[in-house]
């Protein structure tokens, strides 16, 4: 009596077994984000030891690569070799080796402010600023349109630049009606100054311990070191 032949663990065509095939499928479906071993276990219901073995084997056969997560170095993501790690893993354009390139960002912001100060028309569109970065001599200063927008948005959050919609009149004569434009804040550009906060100008406004301060407590207005410093004439 002849027995039915058991299926081979390794599929002869691609050289990988069923588990590896499932895991590779999952990793490919996740594209640039890849999958962690935890995700592989929960999604495929394969035993942990078999997942580890399959991942090692896929790595060996150069089908997947390992990318660290910049948010959590302990968590490793596995990506199919044909995909580039996505923004969530690397941090995006502004990150170098997992750290934010603060000096570059601040430098670019300064350049933007200088451009806005120098321009005769108080109001400019994104394209005008972008043209400056497009023409930049060094590669480091070259920016994409999206990156230029990000820098300008950041200046808006800093309250240094404001976003205005063009109405086609006076200052906006060189722009299309409804187009988003940028201009510097402050008195000179007609936006006025942000007022100094009445609360922020007293020590309690900046005090990290205000929640612990009571009239007769350990931290109190009569014993407060911040008050002492403020009233030191």
């Amino acid at each position, binding site marked *: 009596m002849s027995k039915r032949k058991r299926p081979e663990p390794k599929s002869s065509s691609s050289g990988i077994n069923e588990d590896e095939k499932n895991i590779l499928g999952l990793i490919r479906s996740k594209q640039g984000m890849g999958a*962690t071993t935890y995700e592989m276990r929960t999604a495929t219901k394969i035993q942990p030891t078999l997942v580890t073995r399959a991942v090692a084997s896929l790595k060996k056969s150069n089908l997947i690569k390992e990318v660290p997560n910049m948010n959590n170095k302990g968590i490793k993501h596995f990506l199919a070799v044909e995909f580039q790690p996505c923004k969530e893993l690397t941090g995006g354009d502004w990150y170098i080796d997992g750290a*934010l390139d603060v000096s570059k960002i601040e430098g670019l912001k300064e350049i933007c402010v200088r451009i806005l100060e120098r321009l005769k028309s108080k109001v400019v569109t994104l394209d005008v600023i972008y043209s400056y970065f497009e023409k930049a001599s060094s590669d480091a200063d070259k920016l994409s349109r999206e990156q230029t927008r990000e820098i300008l948005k950041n200046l808006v*959050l800093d309250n240094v630049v*404001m976003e205005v919609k063009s109405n086609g009149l006076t200052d906006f004569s060189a722009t299309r009606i409804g187009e988003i434009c940028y201009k510097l804040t402050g008195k000179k550009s007609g*936006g006025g100054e942000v007022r100094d*906060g*009445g609360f922020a100008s007293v020590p*309690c406004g900046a005090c990290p311990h205000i929640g612990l301060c009571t009239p007769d407590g350990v931290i109190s*207005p009569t014993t407060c070191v911040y008050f002492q410093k403020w009233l030191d004439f």
Partner: protein
Amino acid sequence: MTATEFGIVYAVHIITSHFGSVASKVCECLLRRGPLSSREISRLAESDINHTKVKDILYLLIHHNCVQAFSIDPPDGSESKPTVQYIALFRNIIHGARYNKFSKVVNEELGSQCSGLLDGLLSNGRLTLEQLIDRDRDSKKPMGSEVIRDSLQKLVAARFIERVPSPEPVLGNKDEGPAQKKRGAKASKIFKEPESLEERILEAATPVDAIRFPFIFEQDSSSTVADDDSNIPEGKRKQPEVDYSSGPSNEVIWRPNFEELIRRLRHKACVEIVKERRDEGCANVMKAMLEVGRSQEKKAKTDKSVPMSMGSIYEELIKTDAGREMTQARVEACLEQLSATSSYLPAFVIESDDSYIVDFKSIISVAQKDEMESVVMRRYGKEAFRMFRYLSQEDRFVETDKIADAALTEKKDTPQILLKMWRDGYLHMQKLAVTGVYMPFLLWKVNKLIVSRQMLDEMYHASLNLSLRLTHEKDSEKELLLLPMEKLEGALKERRNKYRAKSVLLTSASFKLDDAILLFHDF
């Protein structure tokens, strides 16, 4: 907005410094527990205060406009008599720290004689014309009864002072809506469901405008009006224990009208904000607009003014020196500027069908936003400032990584900064658990109402601290302050000068801080 924890502590501190610790105990009891009868107060107040003393204190606080008595009609068919209850007026108590601001407003508009008269009313709570004349007679530089009478008339005409409210209004049962609707023809016309018990009581106690601000207030005519008391329905009027609406000789009793005084401060603040954020010309136009719409404002916290035409604005503008320098075309340009919107500033004026409406809410919100952001900047730094502004702009829940991307801040540091703000009540956070993802997502949002309340509480706390520190500085230099300044020399003189500098700084800081409190609580 109801009183916050430190709001109550600060209010109690003000009462203690004005009327002593026993009065403050009664006041604290009312502030913390809400409306109570005098018997309940003597039972619940922390220290033993007998019933007679409680009543005396209540009359003192009523006299200084810090407490209002009222009673509620018993349910239909019930034989029981309505009991008199007392409610603390938190807003009026806090006004006690800003009397000099009110005095300044009156001084600028009506001159020093009127402001002197208002000062008398502010410090004494309530006075009759006769008492004001007596007070003047005893002063160093008497003005004379005629001047007092004239000034009083001017103050009433400008609505800076008012006739005292009904001493003990009777409120209808909650279910019994029509009892309230019956009150006065004018009140029924503008009837709107009042929000809180305090508002209901104040509305019931306030007489109609003709009685509140009489044109003629000579003894005879006023006493007739006072006795008439037409704002309270027939059968609802109960003989009060002490009648505060008129004095012993049936003369009208006056008190400061905080509602109007706050309205003027609000208008001044709006003009100031427009001046800072736009220019002098826009501020002049705004001032004229506020003047045009003022008489039609029903309450101090109005969101929008009535619509006004270009003609009426210009007519008002040319009454002032600065306004006369402006052409109509310039005014139109200013109005256009005021109606412009950007990411930086909202529209201050709404233009519709050739008329203009002042958007008070948006003007005040700009100053509130500045206050909030400057605190975030000082307390948590520039990155937090960007995140806070981004979340305020978005006005929805946003995930940590998205915030880091938008604010261009280091992704590893972002959760810590956000958590710090969340711990202090400046942000709202929600965890979102997703199956298959190990760590839950954290979503963040700026809830302006919660932040405003948190900041208001901290500002009351800071005001209390400034006041306590000033007392501490005064106490520590008590002996030095007794010495005459001209006799001081060397180190002692220097110490005295230092004390003066400290007290000037503390006073001016608390003055400025109170402006911020006004923004969040009264405007």
